[in-house]
């Protein structure tokens, strides 16, 4: 029998025979879990080490349907494993812990867990875990399936990425067995596709950075709510790309944005608290999505526009705001109107909508050197602090939480770049979380509106992913670096006034980070420095993908980032926190090829995972 046949046979009895991988360092719990799972008639494999688990998963991505993992493990943090699995293998992961703190549960969710169970686990709970597998399959399937009818669902679902959409699609695709109960049929029909990628009828599309950038740009242009695969496809104008490819990618993007926005919201709050920072930091803090934008009040443009355009996930990097955006020497103080990110004039072609992030002002002020008060309107007080944070664009949800912290840290980095013009593109705002160190120092310095310049600023921030990890490293670097913002065009907010950090143009690193920051320029990064730290922390957790700063390079969303980044990116110094989210970064960044540190598990992997 061929593999597919075997697989489909197994599937016929689904959920019986569902293949689960259980990971827990406590042997008692592991034995109990294994027995419970066997009792549910699942096929169980256990390991007490996260590293072993990853190895097993990487060996054969189709070997398992679901992963259950403990949160506290000695060799690797459960959340980290969770993210890696989600990104690389796109498998549903359930977290397990004796600790049911809301914060932890939230952390699990933001990292992508599809469920969070408390120990001791009961069999009743395990009896239902198969739903996560089905849901994911259907979800994917829907996206992949032909289906002209998909346009409709997509349109309808709008932002309802994820299950919601799935539901819609399911309904629409009656012939496809919309009922969840009929998994068998579904699985049969599409099981092959889902389970065995190689058996897919359509050749896989590789979402290169370039392609993703276009995608983001198209999404930004349409506005995240109105972005339907058909239109995006038209805008992108790429041969051999099908609507389904776009639909599938869009789905992932939306999910990403959603995740980011949660974080961003948190961050945003923090950022807001921070208030006006004199420094122009680009508060990349979490842009709470639209909410923030408004707060940023400023530039409307940034808002919605920015966010919209923010191609979720990808967008972040994409802020490519037109090259112009780049860190323009931040001339005027902040006013980086992120609002416009999209248009910020830069909208240059591809520039992924990041541009949108860059608030209208783009050019100017954004990166005003320090104290750039990124006045992004929103920043208002920030004076200088460009909040790269939330770039409102992107469906609010996307709010890439430019983790405030990132901003801080990043900003630091950014500031260096005169470019900062906030390259909103990449606002590396990634809040490199942890970079708290940086933040404080850097940001304070005036994270000049990172890259806001050209309006990009915020947009670039595309989810300043909590580059936290990166940030951390870069902390020190950031200061000097401020660079990451390099993004000439996009990169986020790097605009940190060069002064501060001597912007080593390392920006590149930031850039990548910025990407995620959808920095809302308005994020009052200032003051918030401290907060950012916090945010960053948050971000870190979320994004911990941090790519090493070096690796960040690639993260740059490619376009904008490519700008300058090239150099900077590798510069570890800047540690572009942006990288975080490897997974996310993937979208955008498709690293230039270098950087992607191994740690990250290669963005490529992530990217491909995402692309799948």
């Amino acid at each position, binding site marked *: 029998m061929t593999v597919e046949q075997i697989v489909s046979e197994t599937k016929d009895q689904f959920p019986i025979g569902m293949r689960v991988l259980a990971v827990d360092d406590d042997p008692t719990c592991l034995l109990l879990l294994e027995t419970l799972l066997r009792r549910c008639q699942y096929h169980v494999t256990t390991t007490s080490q996260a590293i072993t688990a990853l190895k097993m998963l990487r060996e054969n991505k189709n070997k398992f349907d679901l992963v259950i993992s403990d949160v506290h493990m000695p060799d690797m943090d459960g959340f980290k494993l969770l993210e890696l699995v989600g990104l690389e293998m796109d498998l549903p992961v359930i977290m397990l812990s*004796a600790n049911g703190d809301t914060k932890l549960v939230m952390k699990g969710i933001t990292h992508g867990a599809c469920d969070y169970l408390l120990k001791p686990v009961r069999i009743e709970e395990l009896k239902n875990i198969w739903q996560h597998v089905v849901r994911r399959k259907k979800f994917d399937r829907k996206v992949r399936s032909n289906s002209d009818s998909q346009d409709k669902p997509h349109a309808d679902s709008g932002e309802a990425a994820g299950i919601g959409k799935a539901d819609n699609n399911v309904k629409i695709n009656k012939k496809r067995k919309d009922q969840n109960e009929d998994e068998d049929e579904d699985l049969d029909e599409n099981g092959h596709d889902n389970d065995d990628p190689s058996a897919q009828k359509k050749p896989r599309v590789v979402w290169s950075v370039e392609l993703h950038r276009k995608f983001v740009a198209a999404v930004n242009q349409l506005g995240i709510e109105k972005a339907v695969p058909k239109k995006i496809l038209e805008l992108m104008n790429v041969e051999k790309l099908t609507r389904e490819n776009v639909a599938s990618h869009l789905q992932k993007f939306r999910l990403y944005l959603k995740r980011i926005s949660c974080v961003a919201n948190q961050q945003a709050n923090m950022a807001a608290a921070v208030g006006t920072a004199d420094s122009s930091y680009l508060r990349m803090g979490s842009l709470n999505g639209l909410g923030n934008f408004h707060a940023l009040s400023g530039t409307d443009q940034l808002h919605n526009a920015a966010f919209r355009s923010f191609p979720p996930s990808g967008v972040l990097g994409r802020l490519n705001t037109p090259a112009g955006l780049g860190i323009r020497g931040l001339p005027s103080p902040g006013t980086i109107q992120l609002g416009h990110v999209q248009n910020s004039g830069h909208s240059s072609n591809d520039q992924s909508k990041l541009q949108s992030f860059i608030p209208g002002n783009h050019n100017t002020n954004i990166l005003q050197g320090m104290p750039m008060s990124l006045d992004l309107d929103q920043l208002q007080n920030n004076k200088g602090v460009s909040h790269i944070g939330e770039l409102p664009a992107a469906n609010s949800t996307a709010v890439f939480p430019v983790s405030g912290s990132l901003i801080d840290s990043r900003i630091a980095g950014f500031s260096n770049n005169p470019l900062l013009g906030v390259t909103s593109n990449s606002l590396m705002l990634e809040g490199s979380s942890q970079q708290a160190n940086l933040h404080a120092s850097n940001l304070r310095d005036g994270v000049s509106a990172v890259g806001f310049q050209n309006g990009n600023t915020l947009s670039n921030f595309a989810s300043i992913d909590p580059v936290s990890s990166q940030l951390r490293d870069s902390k020190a670097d950031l200061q000097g670096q401020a660079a990451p913002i390099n993004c000439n065009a996009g990169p986020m907010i790097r605009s940190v006034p060069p002064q501060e950090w001597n912007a080593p143009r390392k920006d590149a690193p930031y850039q990548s980070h910025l990407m995620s920051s959808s920095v809302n320029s308005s994020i009052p990064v200032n003051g918030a420095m401290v907060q950012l730290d916090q945010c960053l922390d948050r971000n870190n957790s979320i994004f911990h993908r941090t790519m090493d700063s070096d690796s960040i390079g690639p993260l740059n969303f490619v376009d904008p980032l490519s700008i300058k980044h090239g150099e900077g990116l590798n510069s570890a110094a800047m540690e572009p926190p942006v990288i975080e989210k490897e997974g996310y970064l993937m979208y955008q960044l498709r690293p230039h090829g270098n950087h992607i540190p191994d740690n990250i598990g290669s963005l490529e992997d992530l990217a491909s995972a995402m692309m799948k």
Partner: protein
Amino acid sequence: MERNPLRRQLQLMRKSLFDQGYLDEQFVQLEELQDDTNPNFVEEVVTLYYRDSARLVLNIEQALERKPYNFHKLDAYMHQFKGSSSSIGAKKVKAESTLFREYCKSGNGEGCMRCFQQLKKEYATLRKKLEAYFQVARQAGPMETACRPK
């Protein structure tokens, strides 16, 4: 037959363990997982628990010998210990673990120490009782898998 008195004795022992608060609902879950294909499951899990948790207890003890206390570490150990203990349904032990963690969070070294002593006692007592219980269980032969009295 002979089994009956043993079975009766077993039931009584079991009931008393529950009534006295040594075990909780989770233990019942373990019992429910025991069947023909897995006839000694409960005993296996408990044995594994005692073996593995001995290590944790030792770690905690050692940590409590070093002053000043590293509460963070102590809390982490205890978190693990608590997870294990709750998996087998060790009610009193779990309660002491929770209390210990509270003391850790508030930085109460004295409280930690006292609590830990109590915890060790409960831990040892439960072990003895369960050992006796399993001994009778083995003699009584395979238990019915019918619903167990709560």
